[in-house]
């Protein structure tokens, strides 16, 4: 039996409806049969056998999530949703509608060009848009496989077109006007288009630069470009990377010609990361907060290997908002980027704690019957370290939600008491009795870490099996089934039963964790056994 616990930001009721905005204790989700989870700031997507559903902000595209085929993969950012169908075609929902992802598979990079959107690729995009619309006119969908029904085709066509056009010609409004003047006739449109294209020679689809007779409208246009089979999309509101089954990464509108086979991609708020089949890492984008791991604080236009990690085989990667994590095949974690909230697992420079942002005092109000409760703090620590605890204490108590004898108690912990418990927690120093923790770990105070740093917090015999990043926090899953968290905790995203900052990775679950997910200011833990909400 599998249980799913979530914690953190509940301002959009993405965890529990009708409960406080902050759930600092891991709370049991009522959804059943969850097979995959995607977390973003205001909502969470849940994949079950019967399809995709979501909790949280009832966003404009929320209803569209329900139409996605259960077999599809989905990737989300706050304002965008990307989906890949069974046969590998991809689409992204932005603002008003689904847009198929098209890339130029055999695009040849010219000297001096980068893979950001080039002027002439706009023309190419326009050609694709034309093709797309013709396909729509023919009634042949782009790919119905992606969706349970064909609702998206019923979208008012004008709005879809307008959207696409805006995308293509957002900067040249005069062109858009010209295009809207052309709406009447296809042939006129095409001949004008030929005039408008400044780089005719570079246009790959010759078919579209010649005018077609009206009658040929029903022919499905021939295309030279073979269909790209996508297997992963990494999406943020301002950047989208797509990965195909051949290991090619696409960005903007063209492939990034790397000559390397990529197996995984990830994006932060300002940087991108890719993992090669050989276990090397490439980074590009902004490195102003050390995100690129190249030892410098600057911008990189092209993907370049993180040199200091070469020779170490990396098995998975994750990007936070401004930090990056790499997990090696031997179970070590390398971490770099911005540590403003301690998300790297190292102590924070004290004057970077944003006291200016304090505006409320959090008192745990998590529902007792739905959250994993802590036991009293006086639990014998030796007993815990010897793992001889009762079933309920599989959840390690470092939590401040102390059940007291007055009523439902835990929400009435006075300020003074809170302080005492905080001190007690520190004094107890459970860590010292925990043989999983490396007693000699480095305690450097870090603000920005510009090159990968080995997180040596755990002993050498401990293997880390997964690392996931939220915007400003990091989750670790260890091979003993325990889960740990570090970083921003203002909204309870660390799942520790309080919202105080922590200086080092802190244990959330003692064992039983099979999968972890993070995004925005939320964490989700999947556990094997039913860790029943405490009845004691």
């Amino acid at each position: 039996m599998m249980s799913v616990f979530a914690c953190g930001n509940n301002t959009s009721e993405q965890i529990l409806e009708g409960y406080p905005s902050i759930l600092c204790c891991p709370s049991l989700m009522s959804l059943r049969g969850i097979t995959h989870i995607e977390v973003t700031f205001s909502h969470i997507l849940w994949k079950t056998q019967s399809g995709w559903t979501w909790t949280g902000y009832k966003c404009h595209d929320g209803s569209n999530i329900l139409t996605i085929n259960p077999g599809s993969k989905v990737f989300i950012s706050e304002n965008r949703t990307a989906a890949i169908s069974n046969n590998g075609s991809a689409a992204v929902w932005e603002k008003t509608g689904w847009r198929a992802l098209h890339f130029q598979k055999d695009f040849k990079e010219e000297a001096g060009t980068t893979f950001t959107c080039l002027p002439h690729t706009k023309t190419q995009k326009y050609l694709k848009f034309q093709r797309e619309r013709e396909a729509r006119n023919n009634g042949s969908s782009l790919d119905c496989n992606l969706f349970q029904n064909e609702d998206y085709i019923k979208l008012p066509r004008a709005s879809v077109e307008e959207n696409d056009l805006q995308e293509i010609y957002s900067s040249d409004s005069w062109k858009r006007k010209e295009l809207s003047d052309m709406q009447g006739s296809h042939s006129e449109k095409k001949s004008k288009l030929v005039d408008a294209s400044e780089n005719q020679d570079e246009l790959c689809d010759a078919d579209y630069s010649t005018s077609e007779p009206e009658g040929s409208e029903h022919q499905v246009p021939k295309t030279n470009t073979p269909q790209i089979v996508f297997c992963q999309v990494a999406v943020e509101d301002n950047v989208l990377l797509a990965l195909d089954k051949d290991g090619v990464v696409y960005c903007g509108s063209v492939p990034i010609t790397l000559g390397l086979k990529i197996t995984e991609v990830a994006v932060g708020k300002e940087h991108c990361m890719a993992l090669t089949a050989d276990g090397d890492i490439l980074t590009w984008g902004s490195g102003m907060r050390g995100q690129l791991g190249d030892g410098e604080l600057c911008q990189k236009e092209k993907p370049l290997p993180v040199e200091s990690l070469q020779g170490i085989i990396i098995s998975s990667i994750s990007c936070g908002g401004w930090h990056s994590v790499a997990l090696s095949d031997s179970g070590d974690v390398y971490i770099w980027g911005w540590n403003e909230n301690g998300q790297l697992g190292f102590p924070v420079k004290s004057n970077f704690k944003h006291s200016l942002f304090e505006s409320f005092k959090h008192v745990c109000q998590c529902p007792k019957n739905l959250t994993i409760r802590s036991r009293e703090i006086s639990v014998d620590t030796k007993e815990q370290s010897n793992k001889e605890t009762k079933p309920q204490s599989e959840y390690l108590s470092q939590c401040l939600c102390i059940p007291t004898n007055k009523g439902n108690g835990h929400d009435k912990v006075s300020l003074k008491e809170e302080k005492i418990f905080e001190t007690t927690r520190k004094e107890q120093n459970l860590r010292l009795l925990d043989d999983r923790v490396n007693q000699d770990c480095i305690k450097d105070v870090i603000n920005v870490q510009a090159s990968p740093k080995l997180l040596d917090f755990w002993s050498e015999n401990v293997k880390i099996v997964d690392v996931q990043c939220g915007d400003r926090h990091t989750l670790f899953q260890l091979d003993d089934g325990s889960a740990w968290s570090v970083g921003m905790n203002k909204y309870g995203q660390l799942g520790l039963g309080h919202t105080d900052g922590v200086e080092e990775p802190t244990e959330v679950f003692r064992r039983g964790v099979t999968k972890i997910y993070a995004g925005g200011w939320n964490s989700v833990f999947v556990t094997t056994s039913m860790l029943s909400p405490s009845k004691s």
Partner: protein
Amino acid sequence: MEENDSTELRRVVEEAVRAVSGRIMVELTHLHTGKESPRTPESRRGNDICKQECGDGKERKTRKEDEINYKELVGEDRIKCRVPPSVAVLCPEAERVVTNDCEVEAAKQRSVLPTGIEEGVVGGWVSHTLATLLQVMASSSTSSSAPLSDTSSFSDEDIVLASALLDYTWQKLNTGHWRDVPMAWRLVFTWGSIAMVGLLLLRLEAALHHHTGPPKHSHLTVAAGVLRACDRGLLMGAPVDDNPLHSSAASLNTYARLAAAGNAEDENCIVTQQDEASVTRPLPSVHCPPLDRFLLHYMAAGVPVKLTGVVDHWPALKLWNLKYLRRVAGARTVPVEVGARYTDLSWSQELMTLDDYLSRHVTSPAANTPTGYLAQHQLLDQIPQLRDDILVPDYCHLGEESPRLHAWLGPRGTVSPLHHDPDHNILVQVVGYKYIRLYEEDQSDLVYPHPDPLLSNTSQADVEGPVEDWPLLQQAQYHDLLLAPGDALYIPPRCWHYVRSLSVSFSVSFWWR
């Protein structure tokens, strides 16, 4: 200052709440009627509308009309259906039932956002959250006759929501270079801060409601927190007409200062020159040149000149001293550059209150305290009361854009390394003394510009350092001068300048292009 204090603080808080909700109402109402934001003070000033309520019946009508407009806008039901948060906390079920209706209503009202913020740019959750918070604050003024419950849990959930909105927006402000961040995000930060300040004020109002006698220390601490929220909005947000954060901050400063114990008040107000500096090649000076002469001989010609007599009429010359600054703005948050020079590795920026800055870095710094310089900060935009003490010299209006004002407040011994700026600059000395050395643009080859492109406008040379370290610099032509209170200096674009303060110093610079 004993028994009345609590009453006075309550009055201040109530007025600030009305200013905030009034301004929000005006913003939303004018959006609804589709009117161009009117510039006339009568209709625009949220502040005034609130004052009108306390005035005679005729003025009251003006406010009434606004209220009615607002009700049309959000719908009477929307206002009514809002369950008092105190109820919502006690009875989550009630909140559920009602917010469902509210959500439908809010969805219809999604367009109710302040000018410059569009859902297409900021996304659904931000639009929805900001609109909700602004409506909560706007409707709070319509129900102000019913005093708020005095439970401490009042609107805590809304405060968390506002906090989440600001933290989320902070992430957006930190994505990409500051100058590339869409203005909409800074506006969201401003309006989110306005809503947050309103909610915090409501909470303080509720706490003071049944309180008699002098305000408790906890009340003052809360007031200091509200003031920090005001300053955060002013420092990181975008300028907004009649920003209620200004008036709230100004009225809370006194109380927030009381919360921080031990603020020194006993400084000697007379600043004398403490350090020596020898002027070897004095810059020519001119007394109040006419505009055309200034334009022709100095601005167009790119010739630096010392200007005397151009700010003699400034109230600031008489008013500004450390005591006055503390009184007007002691509890205000300001950015301070910590470290001897901005080229140093250990240099950093910190936020602190002006009182803390003056005590720690200016009047009585401890022996090993690093230099702290409140440099190049738009203090006069942040604190309009100080802006009222000065007048922009006419020369600064000779460009195409209106001048940008920066304050430079620091102890003796602050150094701005030799550098140049892209704009015309008039530096006015208000308090204290400064030594300045100028190298004109044609001397650039001799002043050791920094090789790093980011710092290429800065020299590596220590102008007053050992002669043998910088041999080329000794060949360079320069002028130097002392600036005393009431003096001004015109620095043309790309003219290298080095500045060292010889005493506690407060200068104002005007940049224009």
